[in-house]
């Protein structure tokens, strides 16, 4: 019984969209105080949508897969749509995560949100830092 789902393994072995964007419209970092993992997301915005998403990540297999799937989930979406991505959605998209790795899904969604915050601030908008949480209680 492998620890991770096939989807997680696929995104871990072949992470999509890794890297940095030169002159990004927004940069968002997030670190996990529990495990020390870190993610940095870079975004390009066009027509209110994420035209490009890239990231760097320091962390476990789950963290890398989460970053990869979040980059895919975010790309092409409107900022509002991205705001609605919850950790549970991320975990589900990956075919589930081990219980003790669920927090990684949080990390990805949060870092991408932070990048949007950064973009909006650069646009001169006032932004309250927001915490990405589940709207539901699916997390055990």
């Amino acid at each position, binding site marked *: 019984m492998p620890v991770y789902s096939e989807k997680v393994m696929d995104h*871990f*072995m072949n*992470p999509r969209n*890794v890297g*940095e964007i030169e002159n990004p419209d927004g940069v968002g*970092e997030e670190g996990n105080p*529990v*495990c*020390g*993992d*870190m*993610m*940095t997301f870079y975004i390009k915005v066009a027509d209110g949508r994420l035209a490009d998403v890239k990231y*760097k*990540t*320091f*962390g*476990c*297999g*789950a*963290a*890398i897969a989460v970053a990869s799937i979040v980059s895919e989930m975010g790309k092409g979406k409107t900022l509002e749509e991205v705001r609605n991505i919850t950790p549970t959605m991320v975990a589900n998209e990956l075919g589930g995560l081990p219980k*003790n*790795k669920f927090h990684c899904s949080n990390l990805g969604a949060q870092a991408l949100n932070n990048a949007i915050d950064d973009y909006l601030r650069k646009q001169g908008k006032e932004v309250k830092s927001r915490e990405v949480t589940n709207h539901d209680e699916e997390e055990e």
Partner: protein
Amino acid sequence: MKSAYLDNQATTPLLPEVLETMLPFFKESFGNAQSLHDWGDAPREALEDARAEVAKLIGGRPEEIIFTASGTEANNFALKGLAQAHQSKGKHVVISAIEHFSVLHSARTLEKWGFEVTLVPVDGYALVDPKDVASAMRKETILVSVMHANGEVGTIQPVAEIAKIVTAAGALFHTDAVATAGTIPIDVAELGVDALSMAANQFYGPKGAGALWLRKGTRIIPLLDGGVQEGGRRAGTENLPAIVGMGKAAEIAKRDIQSRMAKLVGLRDMLLHRLPAAIDHVLVTGHPTQRLPGHASFCIEFIEGESMLMLLSSKGIAASSGSTCTSRALKASHVLTAMGLPAEIVQGSLLFTFGQQITEGDVGYLVEVLPPIVDRLRQMSPLYADFLKGRR
């Protein structure tokens, strides 16, 4: 695909000849060693033979061996059983900061039971300074437990020196020898300890068998109450096949220990030299010479252990790590932390533990596949990017 099992600290494979000796006790000799009829005879004899072999491995007497189901059980038994038996003399216990969880958490339970526990620190090599043990001792100290060698960094402690201090102070001394028994020579008289834990699956024996060696005449309170097995000190129907396997594994270990060590030390030193030569920003953890023969441990900077393990596994290599992410409880290795390593360095922990099945080719293969794995992960790492930009 090539494959190399370099995680013998997690468990060693079982020797085929050990399994052979176990099989009759799954078949015709299935009886209970306590039975008075003929079906009890062969199991009873095998039980005592195994006891003698395990005693011989560490220079003890057969009647001083109490079989348990694991190293963890032996450690729990020693800590809780000795502390409870001798609490009228005092309620203070001393352990090192880098003990295995089965000692560390047993000590926490002792705290809940009203004992006081002092943790002795280690240095950057994970070595306990006997002087620190001496200064931790109090009038009411009844028990000290310092492991013989640490499974995570391989450092072998100056147990004999510590034992002298503890004995002179009138306390009992236990050592967790799970990582050393059957791996390096042990003589309980030379070590001067009162109790010593071991586990068969660390020296090519089966899972499900461990033992506590307890110096004759030392009082202990059972952890498992019940029947009269093991002289009333450890109840429960004996797991004969596993015990027989432990006996056989002990016999073989005793016989082969020098040649086994020679083989491992050579390959270990090869890896300890070649890996830092092949990869930048690599730290060797643990002591350069006072270390387990097959034990090579590192911290690889800027990346995290679990992702390295997964990529190694995809290349057929089994290893382990003390990173937060590889621990189910999401705690960074308390051992590496106690050695003073910063959290992000600990995250890059990587540990290779060799067994007798290893070849020079395996070391070569590892040194070939690891650098591109490290490279790949560093390319993804924001810490590495920062480093390159001179931000760290």
